């Protein structure tokens, strides 16, 4: 089947029900999305399907066919960070960092839906993802900074 990831078409030969997460990681070598639980609890595997945040451990490869799949590698580049990534750097959010690809993808999607979210909206949306290190205070601050930056642009 064909999968379009970060603008590039890939031909993959996998089972229809192989989770997109593992197709990305083990078949395509795209390791930004992380495995944490496999049951949609932690959100470390969050990617965008047609611009909407989705937990890639829950999406069958066959269902991702035809979608624009974006992983953190396609969100911004080292030279041109996405506003959410820039805010994550500015606020030094990461500790172990393992959940942060997913947190960033979730936040980027939130800010498309809700460009200037209230504190409650941030908490509601970001509660889909888990951080074991406890970076939540900095996530809150970084989402607000990113929202402000995106509003300016």
């Amino acid at each position: 089947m064909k999968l379009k990831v970060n603008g590039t078409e890939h031909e993959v030969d996998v089972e229809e029900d192989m989770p997109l997460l593992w197709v990305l990681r083990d078949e395509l070598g795209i390791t930004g999305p992380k495995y944490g639980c496999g049951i949609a609890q932690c959100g470390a595997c969050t990617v965008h399907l047609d611009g909407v945040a989705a937990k890639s451990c829950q999406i069958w490869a066959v269902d991702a066919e035809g979608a624009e799949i974006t992983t953190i590698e396609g969100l911004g580049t080292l030279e041109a960070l996405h506003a959410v990534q820039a805010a994550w750097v500015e606020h030094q959010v990461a500790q172990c960092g393992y959940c942060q690809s997913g947190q960033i993808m979730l936040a980027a999607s939130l800010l498309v839906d809700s460009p200037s979210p209230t504190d409650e909206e941030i908490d509601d949306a970001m509660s889909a993802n888990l951080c074991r290190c406890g970076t939540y205070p900095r996530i809150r601050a970084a989402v607000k900074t990113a929202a402000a930056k995106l509003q300016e642009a």
Partner: protein
Amino acid sequence: MGRLGKIARRTFLIGSAAVLGGVAFGVYTYRKPAENPLEEGLAQDEAALTPYVKITADGITLITPRAEVGQGAYMVQAALIAEELDVRLDQITADPGVPSAAYYNGTVAAEGFPLAATDDGLLARTGRGAADVAGKLLGLQLTGGSSTVPDAFDKLRVAGAVARATLLQAASEETGTVVEQLRTRDGAVLLPDETALPYTALAATAAGIAPVQEVTLKDPSEWRYIGKEMQRIDIVAKSTGTQTYGIDLQMDGMVHATVKCNPRIGGEMLSYDASEAEAMRGVKRVVPITGGIGVLADNTWRAFRAAEAVACTWAEAPYPPEMDGMWEAVAASFTEDRQDSRFKDEGDVDAMEASVEAEYRIPYLAHAPLEPMTATVLLDGGRLDIWTGTQIPRFMQVNAAKLAGLDAAQVHVHVLTSGGSFGRRLEDDYVLQAVELAMAEPGVPIKLTWSREEDMAHDFPRPLQMARARGAVANGQVTGFDLGIAAPSVAASQLARLGQPAMGPDVAIVAGAWDQPYNIPDYRVTGYRVPPLVPVSSWRSVGASGNGFLHEGFLDELIHVAGADPLEERLRLCWHAPSRRVLEAVGEMSDWGNALPEGRGRGVAFTLSFGVPTAEVVEVTATDRGIRLDKVYVACEVGRVIDPVTFDNQVKGGVIWGLGHAMMSELTYFDGIAEQTNYDGYPGLRIYQTPEIEVRALETDALRGIGEPSVPPAAPALANAIFAATGQRIRELPLNKSVDFV
């Protein structure tokens, strides 16, 4: 500087012999220098100045041997070296180095913590079956016990200073300019005419010079990095998905693997049938290993699926299979026979007339770092390579060598960044499994990845604990406090797995309780050692993590019975000035004296752990939907803050860790198997439940670590706040067994 002699002596004692002339370990016992691992494999134009600094024509590498598990250890270590070497943090690469006795952790050994064994035990018998390691003594390269900063502060600065002085000497020899006329700036030596000679260009010359030992460390007023806000060296990688963790490793010809072992920890596999699994797509082999099977496949998911399809027959658990039986064993341990320690025994507790008695319980807890256990191993001829996230590279090297029948020198450990640990990576069980798989498939790199379910089933949890407490009050004051704590020994369980003996009492059973700075007329803390149940391990803040709740929960009860104010009475009882300061600070921060409206409550708790007095106040509201956490105030006397960002992250992260587990987490066993198999059954705190946290650091010249001390007071401060808001005293964790949370 007057401090120089002291620094040299201290560095000397804690064993940076390879840096300062090869006598450090001699003092400790053998008069044998630690090997300098960087001299091995250096190319012609490379100079290894010290075990902590490596400069080549290509760049400057700072060796940061303490593991990065999210706590900012690489950053802190790099900053200490960079401060004296005079390089910018964007000019260097941090590398965890290779396992070496030169990276011996003097602080953990000195504190006997978390490996609470006597020095004799460790010294005499380290690395049984590996004579070369015994010869080099401890080799205690581990990350834990909030020890990175205290251990590294002088060592790494001296390493940077020696390297800088030697580079100055090299520049002097190259240019004929006397050293006094040379300066350094941002990774270069400056000649009097401001010509810059990069360190990288001086490396070859420096290699031929004996390291300059006479160094003067900067006065704190001259520091550019220490204590200043710096950008974490891994922050861009961790914000762009480009940080490589163990689980991300990719190699040519690599085979993916997973394991399925008896979920009754330590239990054997009686038989297995892999016929269905071996017929599944992508499966190469199913291999029996200790206690279970491993699946080799062409991707991780296929390995996971095939492992599920292997039918295994498991032996019974080597411990009581149900919680009732375990609690019975705990409850039966409050006996003279099982008494493990009584480090605190003041006044006459036996004669005390108790006015309050209570029993407390805390559950098993998993570490469950978000990155599951993973290791990549390649056995090729007489060489074994291991790539993994670990806090104990040196022990791992020895244990892997023993398993593979090699010398430790043939085992090469490459330490990768970890996606969290919280103590889990003080174990090497997952690595030894990967070695078993590599032995079955030599010449092929095998990447073992645990499923989350395997990770939950095979966590070595924090032990369950029970406390029986008696107390007395008189005239509005707490006058008697008798706390007995029964728990299995973490030290005995963990050290046995590392091939180490554990002798004497286990401090962890009573840490954070026996050592609290209160003057109570009749005051006793007794530890009782429960016979081994589920194998247990060090969990962020170790013994203090639970004992903080036991001590501060019961103290709060007594204070209320006495009719005193929880903060005022703690201050009255506390004799230790730094501890009083943090209590006063949280009082001021939280406006303690100012009463809250009906339905709201404030709780205070204090724990001195890892040398850091930490006080916390939690504010809650009892709503129709349950308890809501409104705000947390934390004050700690932390010594010197090296990196303010890391400090803030560690303190807040510790509070969130402590609150989340206290509210909703426990590991329970049924039929010998953990009943919580993933984050749905073992939730952590989510962002919507996270209160605002205000932190104040009271700084001194002391050196302390901050990865753990904010954990212990979080649970009791919350429980005490719930009592203040509702009148309900909760003596068992998790708290959601007794109350709902919003």
